[in-house]
């Protein structure tokens, strides 16, 4: 059984029909890439899964449980963690406080080991743990956002455009990290405009086009797909 099953969801912004029946599934341990151009509905899909928006029709099931009507904050303790678009670090909290917030749902318990893990993954953050997150560079903020999302010990990590606004050198680093996280057993749903990078690390991929899944295939096949090459990879 799939860890996450999205079944024919329709989501609206007021009267705007943003998702017109999106269905896909994510198996445990996979890296799934959701690619598409601006306004295709990628972020809306993530927001719907994470509970920040409710679908008008359709269902989302996680670990066999229907979650499309469950409040976002409750999903975090069920093991779904999101790295929001534009990183969304708490600029006026320090790095360590940000990480603490990531573990908000874990009442009690010792965070020391988890902090150690986070700093092992991103040594840069340890150097600056007492600094305000707003003073970090874009790449460091992205690292912090990912580390923070991991603090809740998720089974499923939703990543929204982790490469946005980063220098190419840093983008490589971010995707390497994502691969490393996946190798530790965290299932990853990755939304990206940078289809090239996303498909390199993903197992399977879905192409989203004006609110609908247009193509679905393994990442390797998608990289060879003519339409994908033309539209998203810039290869003629």
């Amino acid at each position: 059984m799939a860890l996450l099953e999205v079944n024919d969801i329709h989501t609206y912004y007021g009267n705007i029909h943003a998702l017109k029946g999106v269905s896909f599934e994510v198996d445990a341990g996979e890296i799934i890439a959701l690619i598409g151009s601006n306004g295709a509905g990628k972020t809306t899909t993530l927001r719907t899964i994470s509970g920040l928006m409710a679908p008008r029709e359709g269902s989302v099931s996680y670990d066999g449980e229907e979650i499309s009507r469950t409040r976002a904050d409750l999903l975090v303790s069920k093991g779904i963690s999101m790295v929001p678009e534009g990183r969304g670090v708490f600029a006026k909290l320090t790095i360590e406080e940000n990480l603490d917030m990531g573990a908000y749902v874990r009442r009690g318990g010792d965070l020391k080991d988890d902090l150690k893990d986070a700093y092992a993954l991103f040594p840069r953050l340890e150097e600056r743990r007492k600094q305000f997150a707003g003073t970090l560079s874009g790449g460091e903020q992205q690292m912090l956002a990912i580390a923070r999302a991991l603090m809740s010990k998720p089974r499923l990590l939703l990543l929204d455009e982790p490469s946005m606004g980063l220098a190419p050198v840093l983008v490589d680093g971010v995707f390497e990290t994502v691969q490393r996280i996946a190798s530790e057993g965290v299932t990853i749903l990755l939304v990206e405009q940078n289809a090239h990078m996303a498909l390199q690390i993903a197992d399977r991929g879905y192409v989203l086009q004006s609110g609908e899944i247009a193509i679905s295939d393994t990442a390797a096949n998608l990289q060879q797909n003519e339409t994908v090459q033309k539209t998203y990879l810039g290869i003629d």
Partner: protein
Amino acid sequence: MDHLRSPASRTVLTLGLLSGAFILFTGAVGMIAAFHEREVVDRFISLGQLTLLAAPFVTAYYSASRLREYGGDLRNVLIAGAGVGLLTALPSITLLLFNSDEFRVLLFLTLRLAPIVAASAIAWGRHRAGAETQTVIGIWLLVAILVGIVTYSFALIFEIKGDLRTVLVNIDRDWVEVITFENRNDLMRGIGTFGFVSVASGLAGSVLYLMPTVPRRALIYGLGITTLIGAFGETARLILQENVDRDTLREIFRRDTLRQNAALALFVISTAAGFLWALYGRQARERFGSIGAAPRRTLNRVGLVIFVAFMLMLPWLIGRTLSDVAVTIGIFVLMGLGLNIAIGLAGLLDLGYVTNYAVGAYFLAVLTSIGPLGLFKGTFTFWMVIPIALLAAMFAGFIFAVPVLRMRGDYLAIATLGFGEIIGKLAISDWLKPLIGGAQGVQAIPKPLLLGTELKNPEQLYYIVLVACLFCLFVSIRLNNSRTGRQWMAIREDEDVATAMGIDTARAKLLAFTLSAATGGVAGAIFAAKVGTVFPNSFTVFISINVLSLIIVGGIASNPGIVVGAIVLIGMPELLREFSEFRFLLYGALLILMMIKRPQGLIPSKIVSHEHSSGIKAKLAAAE
């Protein structure tokens, strides 16, 4: 002409004319004349004269510091000081001439010639810039007609009324009397004196700047303290009254005015103290900075003990009138700490805070009153009602929070503003009149009893407020570093992301509103007991705005800042009472000045101060 265009002379011109405009304006609104009534030092200098002296003095000092940046030498600085003095006097001298019988013709000439001069100047400028003749003539005509319409209508008004005084009502004999330094009958001599004093004072300002650091700082301390105590003589006297016997007091003050000898002594002492501080202050601070952690902890503890002792003795040090002010300040500190939970920590802009204050006040009033509206005629005491008022306010906060949970930012502010209005209307309504008395309010609220004594003086009520404030301060500080506080800060930063962290934002916001309301209820109850009557018009939107302002002036999300903000914002109008009807003009001006000079608040929280000091640095780092 060219050296007038240098940045240095521009600075002098701008600053000088600014201070001239200030003197002209304060004169035209009647401040100078009104301040002349109030003497700073007995039979020596009045507040009005002090204003005339201080403007060129301070401006010259400031312009000297700017000139030094441009590399001006000694001569330049002195000339600039005199220039600032002259420029300060100039607008008022012009007005004086225009206003005099002999030179009234000047006013009419100016009004008649102004359009031609203005048009020619602008047209000439265009011509020099290389515009075509036709355009230049067109511009000349246009400006002449536009300016002409204004000046000719002014001229018309003056001719009908015959006098400047009918337009500028405060440009009267009293004003002339002050501004000519009591040479009203000899205009030329008056103008000369005024100009001379102004120039001398400007020169003195620049000389002060040129002095070596130590005597300069000593003099600034001396002058500052003497003028402050002189200007706030009434307050100073009230404080001294409590601690000094009558004869000594009479030696120092004549009514509310410092006597000359006392002023001189004060000046000498404060200058000497300033001198010592300027000499050894840095050393002392360095030595304090270098002592070890253990002795420092003892020192801190000693400081804390002294502070607590001071707070406990305060009412006996400052007397009844100021204790009353202290109680009001305390009530606002309570509200400030409460509202800060919503605004400072959770970022919820609540403009209806007066609701909680009103609920607390009315609960105490109705439950304890021994008047006709009292429900229980004295069965309930103050102490029993305080927790009830607190819970009632929390309940009100909760109820009002439910409908606005989904709102954010400006929309939330408007909705909460509406709630404040609803409470005001309810309090005055006929519907609730049988219960809370409508416009007549509730009367005969007994004072709190403690161990059989009635706490009826502000000196005694002060302790209730003090305990309440300390308790709230403690809770507030603990909240700042708690999981709950952290969750509010996350919501303030980004509500969606906070949700994505697993925070139940609805619950957190409800909690913020409810807790925030609690102190408002206690503040209202104490207020009701202090005043003894509760009227609906005590609960206007201005309470909410005042509380919000004291948080912003003090420093948002900063506990010490809120205390200082309340002292400044609530205490200042009381101190400024001495400036009679110009009190709120000055109050407004000071608020504007404060927000320009310290937008982060008087004691900013670490987050805000960090933002202001390194905001640019952070942006640069992020851009790399």
